[in-house]
Structures are given as C-alpha cells and as structure tokens.
C-alpha cells in the first residue's frame, strides 16, 4: 500500500516536472518569437492588405508586356516569351560551368585541407585547431560576401564568382570530408605506418580508398547547392544568369522575369534529378563491391 502511494507520488512528481519543462520551453519560444517579430518590423496588416501584390506579381510576370501578343498569357506565345533564349542559354551554361569549376576547385582545396582537422590523423592539437578555424571561416562567411569582395579584387565577371564559390565550398566540404576521415577504419593506416610509410603515402593508400565514395557523393550534393548559388552571383556582378535576372526584376521586364525564373528552376530541377540518380548508382555499386 505504502509503495503504491510512493509510486503515485513519484508519477505525479515526474508529470509535474515534465509539464514544467514544456511550459518553460513554450514560454521561451514565445518570448523569442515576440522579440524577433519586434526586431524585424513584422507588420501583419501590411502583409494582409498587400498580399494581393504577391499573387498579382505572379499574374503580371505571366503576362506578356510588349510585342504583338501584349496582354496575353506567356505560354500562349512561347516564341515571344522566350525571345532571349539565344542570349539566356549561354548564360545558363556559364552559370552551370561556374558551379562546376567552383565545386571542383573547392573540393580540391577541401581534399588538401581535410586531413589536418581530423583527430585520428593529426595528433598536433594546434595544427588541428588552426585548420578547423580556417575551414569554419570559409564556410561561415556567405559566398555572396566573398563575391562582393572578390569583385573588387579580381574585377567584375565570372572569375570572382567562381573563386567565391570555391572558397565557400572548400569550407563546407572540408568539414564534411574531415568528418568522414575521422570515421574510417584505422587498421589500414596502422598497417602502412608499421611498414614505415610517410604521411602522404599513408593517406594515399590507406585513407583515400575508404573515403572516396563519400567524397564523390558530397561533391555532387555541393554541386547542386552551388548551381543555386551561381544563379544569383550576377546580383553582385560576379557572372552568370543572375545579372540578367536582377536587371529584369529592377527594370520591371515582367515577362523576362518569369522566363528567366523558369529556366533557372528547370535547370536546378534537372541537375538535382541527375545528381540524385548518380549518387544512388554510386551507392549501389558500393553495396555490390
């Protein structure tokens, strides 16, 4: 009887504590929400009175605003709508190429830097911390900020964009690679070290074969992200299709905005699809081997 009462009391106690935690969590969340709503000038009445503009904008960008088919929906006159295809497709190709080169250079940088921060390969804590901080810096500073700075240093054009993507990619991939490196099987490494191999041969023959499939898969994912990133590099003058897009938005060439958005979204979707297929194929091959 006594133990039952104890048990009931304990149960109530646990329940009360749990409720207390939930209440505290909700209160914290509400406070943070109110603070951020106040900080960011949330104005719901403006949103609701102007929400029509949002859909109205889509209505306007889907209507041809010049030429013989003026006033009609864009898809009724695709030739009019996509009049700039000859100019836009090369720009789109440039954007993809920027993403490709940026990912490649960044991945090479990440591959060179990812062994230093790994606990199992670099016993020296100072080297490890230095490498980690450097990678953190590279991935925390947004690539558009790098692009803004590089445009000043290297001049307007895609070169600044590629370098900005590369630096950011090196930071992001470097962290992911070094996590993969920390999770490898150490036996091959010990085997090579026991036979007197130096650092780089050890990495080449004991580490690289273990991390290669993960590295490739992370690179493909990063390429998908970088295609999106490259599409807005033109906003700050760093090349690609973004330049035409921001011009169309700023100068109210409504039909052009929708055409460019369509091209970008289609391109991103196709790249995502292909890269997903490729990654699955790689994983399958890995499972068979």
């Amino acid at each position: 009887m006594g133990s039952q009462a104890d048990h009931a009391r304990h149960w109530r106690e646990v329940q009360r504590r749990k409720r207390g935690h939930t209440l505290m969590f909700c209160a914290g969340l509400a406070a943070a929400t109110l603070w951020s709503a106040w900080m960011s000038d949330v104005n719901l009445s403006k949103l609701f009175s102007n929400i029509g503009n949002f859909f109205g904008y889509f209505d306007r960008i889907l209507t041809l605003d010049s030429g013989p088919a003026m006033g009609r929906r864009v898809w009724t006159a695709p030739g009019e709508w996509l009049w700039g295809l000859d100019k836009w497709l090369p720009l789109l190709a440039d954007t993809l190429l920027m993403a490709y080169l940026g990912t490649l250079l960044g991945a090479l940088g990440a591959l060179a830097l990812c062994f230093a921060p790994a606990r199992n390969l670099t016993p020296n804590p100072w080297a490890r911390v230095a490498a980690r901080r450097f990678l953190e810096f590279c991935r925390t500073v947004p690539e558009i900020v790098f692009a803004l700075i590089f445009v000043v240093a290297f001049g307007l054009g895609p070169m600044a964009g590629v370098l900005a993507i590369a630096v950011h990619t090196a930071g992001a991939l470097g962290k992911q690679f070094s996590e993969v490196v920390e999770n490898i099987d150490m036996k091959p490494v010990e085997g090579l070290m026991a036979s007197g191999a130096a650092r780089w041969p050890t990495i080449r023959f004991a580490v690289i074969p273990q991390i290669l499939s993960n590295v490739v898969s992370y690179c493909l994912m990063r390429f998908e992200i970088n295609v999106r990133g490259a599409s807005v590099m033109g906003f700050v003058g760093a090349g690609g299709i973004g330049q035409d897009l921001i011009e169309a938005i700023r100068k109210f060439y409504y039909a052009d905005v929708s055409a460019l958005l369509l091209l970008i979204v289609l391109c991103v979707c196709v790249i995502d699809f292909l890269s997903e297929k490729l990654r699955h194929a790689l994983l399958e091959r890995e499972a068979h081997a």
Partner: protein
Amino acid sequence: MTIPSAPGAMRLTHADAASIARMRARHPEAFHAPPLRRAAPYLIVALATALAVFALWRFEFSPVRLATGLARLGDMAVLMVPPWPGGLAEAWTVVKALGETVAIAFLGTLLATAFAFPVAFLAARNTTFSGVARFLTRRGLDGVRGVDMLIWALLWINVVGLGPFAGVLAVMTSDFGALGKLFSEAIEAADRKPVEGVASTGGSHWRQVRFGVLPQVLPVIAGQALYFFESNTRSSAIIGIVGAGGIGLYLSEQIRMFEWQGVAFAIILILIAVAIIDRISGVLRAAIINGGVQKL
C-alpha cells in the same frame, strides 16, 4: 618450415596450371575486366579536367589576373586592421543590424517549420491520402526550392516594401521548400511497426499518423529546424544586399565604399553570432535526441 594455413585455403606452391585455369574460369571478371571498365576512371578524370580547363579559359582565368587580385586582397586585409566601424554609435548600429539578422533567421525558420510540417505529411508516401496530392506537393516544393532566397527576397519586397519583414518572408518561403522535402523524407523513413500496431487496434488513418508516425519524426524535425536556424543566420546576413533588412545592407555598403575596417567588423560579428548559435543549437539538438530516446 611450413606456413600454417587456414583449412581450404589454396597454397601458392600447389597452384598448378590446372588450378589457375579453374580460377580463371570461376572469376573471369577478375582476369579480363573489359577494357572500357578499366579505362573508365581515367576517362572520367580526363573529361573532368578537360571541362575544367575549358571553364578556366572561358572565364579568363590567368596567372596575371590571379596574382594582381591576390595582391589586392592582401592590401585589403592590411586595411582591415583594426576591425572597427569608426565610432561607438556606428558600432551600435551594426550590432542592432546583426540582431535584426538573427531575428529574421529565427522567425523565418519558425514560420517555415510551421508551414512545412503539415505539407510534409502530404508529400510522404506513407501518410499522404492520394498519389496525385503527393506528386503535386513534391513538384511544388521542388519549384519553391529551385528559386534562391535572394530572389524570394526581391519578390517579397514588392509586397511588404523594403525592410526586415521582407527578409523574414524570404527565409520562410525558401526554407519551406527545403524543410518540406527533408521532413517528408524523415516521415518516409519512419518505422512501420508502430503504425501497424495502431492499425491492428482499429486506429483510423489520422490516429496511425498521430501515434505511430509523429513520435518518431518529431525529434528529427526539431533537429533539422535547429540546423536550418543556424544556416539561416548565415544566409539572412546577405539578404540585406537586396534591401531586405539585416546586416547585409551595411556590409555591402561598406564593401562598395571600400571601408575595409567596417567590413572586417561586420564579418567578425557575423562569425561570433553564428558560433554562438551553433553552440546553442548543438546543445538543444543533443537534448532533443536524448529526450527522444528517453521517451521511447
């Protein structure tokens, strides 16, 4: 001296022509890999290199440009020391802009999570009510995700005007696409057994989702939302470039005016803020994962 060998293992000394032939017959692919497959890695590397060289040529990379650019970067780095915007009042403005950035990231992520949560159940194979709804939701999410946050910010500025509110809405929209996809993947990865348990006691579809799926996916979803909050602090630091509030406006102005000390100050503040949020969200994520395990 004889070398001990595992039973059944073939000793090399006994490998005569016949056993080699047997091995060849048994593992033909090990002895005669098709030339194309042997050449494939080299071909891939050669193609990748060729494409990279073409890109380098097309984007007019040159050692001279690279060297002058790096030299200029070095000059800027020197001009960045000491990182200070020039006065206490300016410093306070930057700190306030940073607070705005964090607020944009927080509110945007919260709203995106709230909207993506119900939609994800529509997009997941095991909880949706019709294949058509699933297909439409998924394609919709893909479309939203394909448009970059900066572009969404430009669109929302048309609705609510310049300022941080447009930033909140931009973060919300672009994360809605990403989180919706991630959440629906988490729902699809949920274990079937609790659902079957609820179904076996006669629970409706709604009950199966509520008591079979939801407890499994909530910790995953909370973890992903926290992770997005952290990465949004980085991205909302830039939407100010197009006028959607936060520290980005200050940062881009300082870069355009070559005020490198102010640039360095803003970047350092962003780094500190991201590091703090990273730490907090790491602690919260660990607590959520542990709490989830305890509840199970």
